[in-house]
C-alpha cells in the first residue's frame, strides 16, 4: 500500500515538473547561458584536453600532460595571459573515440575555455567534431591524421601524416641518400599507413624507386624474418620505417642477426627508441629520423625545456609529445595575447578571436623555429632530421 502511494506521488511530481519545464525552457535558455559565462570568468582561463593516461599509449598521454603542465606553471609564475591565470585539466580517454567524447563533455561541465584537443588521432577526430559544433578552439599537440583539424576551429603543432611522408621522401631525394628504397609499414595503423601512402606517391614523383613494400599488422608484429628476407633480395640500400619505435627495435635486431646491411630512415614514431629498456642502442647507430624534438639539441629553448622537465618529471616521458604540448600552451599564449583574450569572453568568442590570431603569429618553440599557421590549421616549419650517433641524436 505504502509503496504504491510513494510511486503515485512520485509520478505526479514528475508530471508536474514536465509541465513546468516545458514552459520554462524556451524563454530561459539564453539567459542561463550568459549567467554561466559570467560565473566561468573570475580571471581564470581554463585549458582542457584529453589523452591516453592509462593503457597502451599512456606514455604519450602522460608526456602531453606533463609538458602542458610545465608550460602552464611557468606562464602562471610569470603573471599569466593578459592578467588571467591559467588552469589546466586533462581527462583520460584511453585513446578511444567514445571515451574522448565523454572526456570532452566532462571538460565542458568544467567550463573549459580553450582546448588542446587530444593526443591521438582517432580520438581527436571525434573530440574535434563535438568541439566544432560548440565553436571551441582546439590546438592539438600531436594528432597527426589529416581529418583531426578538418574544422576551422582546429589547429595543430605537429606535422600531419601526409606531410611527414612528403617531407621524408623529399629529404631522401634532396640529400641523395638513396635511390632504391624498401619500406616496412603497419597496414592496420592509421599513422603508418597514412605516411606510407604519401611517401609512395611523392617518392615516384622525385624519382626514388621503391623496390619492396612490406607490411605487418598489430597481431603479427614480432617476427619480421619474411619481410627482411624479401628486402634483402630486392637489393634496396635504404629502409624507410614509418612505424613506432617498439616494432622498429625488433626490426633492427632481426636485420642485424640476418646479416642485412642497410641504411634506415624513420619518422617521429621512432623517437623514444633510445630510451627503451633492454634495447642495445648500438643497433640504432646511423638510423636517421625526422623528429621535431631531440633532447640533446643545444638551442636555448630545448636546453631550457629539458632541464626544467627533467627536474620535475624525470626522463621517462620526456618525448616529442611532451615537447609538442609544451609548445602548444605557449602558442595559445602567443595567440591569446595577440587577440587580447580575457576571462570574460565566452568560449565561442575566444575561438573566433584565436582563429584569426593564429594565422598572424610566428612562434619560436622547442619543436621548431618561426612556426606559422595557415587558416586550414597546418603548421609550416622546417622538418628537423637527426641521425643517431654514439647513442644520441645529432642534427643532420
Amino acid at each position: 500500500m505504502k509503496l504504491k502511494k510513494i510511486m503515485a506521488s512520485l509520478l505526479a511530481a514528475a508530471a508536474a515538473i514536465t509541465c513546468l519545464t516545458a514552459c520554462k525552457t524556451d524563454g530561459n535558455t539564453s539567459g542561463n547561458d550568459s549567467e554561466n559565462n559570467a560565473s566561468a570568468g573570475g580571471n581564470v582561463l581554463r585549458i582542457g584536453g584529453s589523452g591516453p593516461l592509462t593503457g597502451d599509449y599512456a606514455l604519450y598521454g602522460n608526456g602531453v600532460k606533463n609538458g602542458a603542465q610545465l608550460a602552464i606553471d611557468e606562464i602562471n609564475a610569470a603573471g599569466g595571459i593578459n592578467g588571467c591565470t591559467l588552469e589546466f585539466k586533462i581527462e583520460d580517454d584511453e585513446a578511444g573515440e567514445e571515451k574522448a567524447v565523454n572526456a570532452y563533455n566532462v571538460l565542458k561541465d568544467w567550463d573549459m575555455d580553450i582546448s588542446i584537443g587530444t593526443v591521438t588521432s582517432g580520438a581527436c577526430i571525434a573530440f574535434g567534431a563535438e568541439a566544432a559544433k560548440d565553436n571551441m578552439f582546439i590546438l592539438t599537440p600531436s594528432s597527426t591524421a589529416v581529418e583531426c583539424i578538418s574544422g576551422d576551429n582546429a589547429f595543430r603543432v605537429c606535422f600531419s601524416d601526409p606531410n611527414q611522408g612528403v617531407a621524408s621522401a623529399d629529404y631522401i631525394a634532396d640529400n641523395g641518400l638513396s635511390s632504391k628504397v624498401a619500406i616496412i609499414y603497419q597496414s592496420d595503423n592509421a599513422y603508418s599507413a597514412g605516411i606510407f601512402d604519401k611517401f609512395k606517391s611523392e617518392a615516384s614523383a622525385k624519382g626514388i624507386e621503391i623496390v619492396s613494400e612490406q607490411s605487418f599488422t598489430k597481431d603479427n608484429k614480432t617476427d619480421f624474418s619474411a619481410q627482411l628476407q624479401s628486402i634483402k633480395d630486392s637489393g634496396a640500400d635504404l629502409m624507410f620505417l614509418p612505424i613506432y619505435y617498439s616494432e622498429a627495435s625488433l626490426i633492427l635486431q632481426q636485420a642485424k642477426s640476418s646479416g642485412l646491411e642497410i641504411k634506415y630512415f624513420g619518422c617521429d614514431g621512432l623517437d623514444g627508441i633510445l630510451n627503451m629498456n633492454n634495447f642495445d642502442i648500438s643497433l640504432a647507430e646511423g638510423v636517421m629520423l625526422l623528429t621535431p624534438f631531440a633532447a640533446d639539441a643545444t638551442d636555448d629553448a630545448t636546453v631550457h625545456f629539458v632541464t626544467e622537465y627533467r627536474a620535475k618529471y624525470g626522463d621517462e616521458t620526456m618525448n616529442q609529445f611532451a615537447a609538442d604540448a609544451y609548445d602548444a600552451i605557449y602558442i595559445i599564449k602567443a595567440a591569446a595575447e595577440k587577440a587580447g583574450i580575457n576571462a570574460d569572453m565566452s568560449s565561442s568568442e575566444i575561438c573566433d578571436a584565436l582563429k584569426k590570431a593564429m594565422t598572424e603569429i610566428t612562434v619560436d618553440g622547442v619543436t621548431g623555429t618561426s612556426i606559422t599557421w595557415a587558416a586550414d590549421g597546418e603548421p609550416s616549419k622546417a622538418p628537423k632530421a637527426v641521425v643517431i650517433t654514439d647513442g644520441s641524436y645529432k642534427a643532420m
Partner: protein
Amino acid sequence: MQKERKPLKAATKSNLITYGILIAAFIIVSIICASNDKMYQFKGMLVPLCIYSIMAVSLNLVVGILGDLSLGHAGFMCIGAYVGAFFSVLLKDNIPLDWLRFVISLVLGGITAGIFGFLIGIPVLRLRGDYLAIVTLAFGEIIKNIVNLLYVGVDGSGLHVSIKSASDLNMAEDGTVIVKGALGITGTPNDSNFTVGFILLLITVFVSLNLINSRTGRAVKSIRDNRIAAETVGISVTRYKLIVFMISAFFAGIAGVLYSHNISSLNTSTFGYNTSILVLVYVVLGGIGSTRGSIIAAVILYALPEMLRELRDYRMLIYAVVLILLMIVNNNEKFNLFKEKISISRFIQNRREAMSKGAKS
C-alpha cells in the same frame, strides 16, 4: 459489483514491469535534460547507454535463451556500424531528409549484420560449448581485420575497392575516399539522439521479450535445457538456433549504426574482443536470461567508470572491485532472498492475493 479481473500471466506481468521501468527512466531523464542547460557529461552518456543496452539485450538472446556462448558480438556491431556509416556518408548530399537517411541506414546496417549472422551461423552453430565460443571469437577478429584493410572510394565511374592503400584505388580527381583502411570512416552525420536510441532499445526489448514467450522461444529454451529431448520431439535445432542468432546479430547491427552516427570517427579498434567481453559481462552480471537485468547491468557498468573520473588513476581499480563485489553479491543466497522480498512483482502478487481474500470473505 466489482468485476473479477483475469489475473495476468507471470511472464506478462514481468514484461510490463520492464517496460514500466524503461519508460519511467526515459521520462525522468528527459525531465532532467530539459531542466538543465549543463550536465554535458550526463547528456553525452545517454546514447552510449542505449547502444550498450541494445547490445546486452541482443546478446542475452544467444547466451541466456539459446544457452550458447558467443564471443563475437562486437563483430556484428562492427558490420552494422560500417554499413550504416558508409551509406550515410555516401548519400549525405543525395537524401535531403536526415531522418529518412538514418532510418534507411539503420535498416541496412541491421539487415547486413543479420545476413552475416545467418552465414556465420550455418557452420558455427553445429558446434557446441567451448568450440562455439572459440569460433565466434575468431569470427569477430576476422571481421575486424578485414574491415581494417578495406579502402573504398567513390567517383564519377562508381565504387572502387582496394585492400592495399588509398592510392591503389585509381580514382578520378573528383573522387572521395570513404573507408580509409585503419583510419576508418570519418565525418558521419550526427543523427543519433537519446529519443531514437530509446525507441530502438524499446523495439529491441519488445522483440526480445515476445520472442522469449512465443512458441519459437519455448522451442529455443527446450534446446537450451536438453538438446536431445528437444530433438526427439521433432524440434529442428539448427533452424531455431539460426533464427535466434540472426535476430541477435540484427540488433547488434542496429546498435552499431547508432554508434557510428553518434561519434564522427569510426574505426575498428572499438570492436575488438574487449567489447564483446564487456557486453558478455553485462549479460552475466545482469543475470543470464534476464532482459531487464541485462539493461540494468549495462547502464550501471557503463556509467560507473565515467562517474569515477574524479578518482583519476584509481578508477579502473575501483571498477574491477565493483565487478567482483557484484559477482559475489549476485550469488549470495541471503541477498537473493532479500531481493525476493523487495521485488515489485512479488509485492503486486501479495496485494492481489490479499484483495481477493478480502473480496471472498
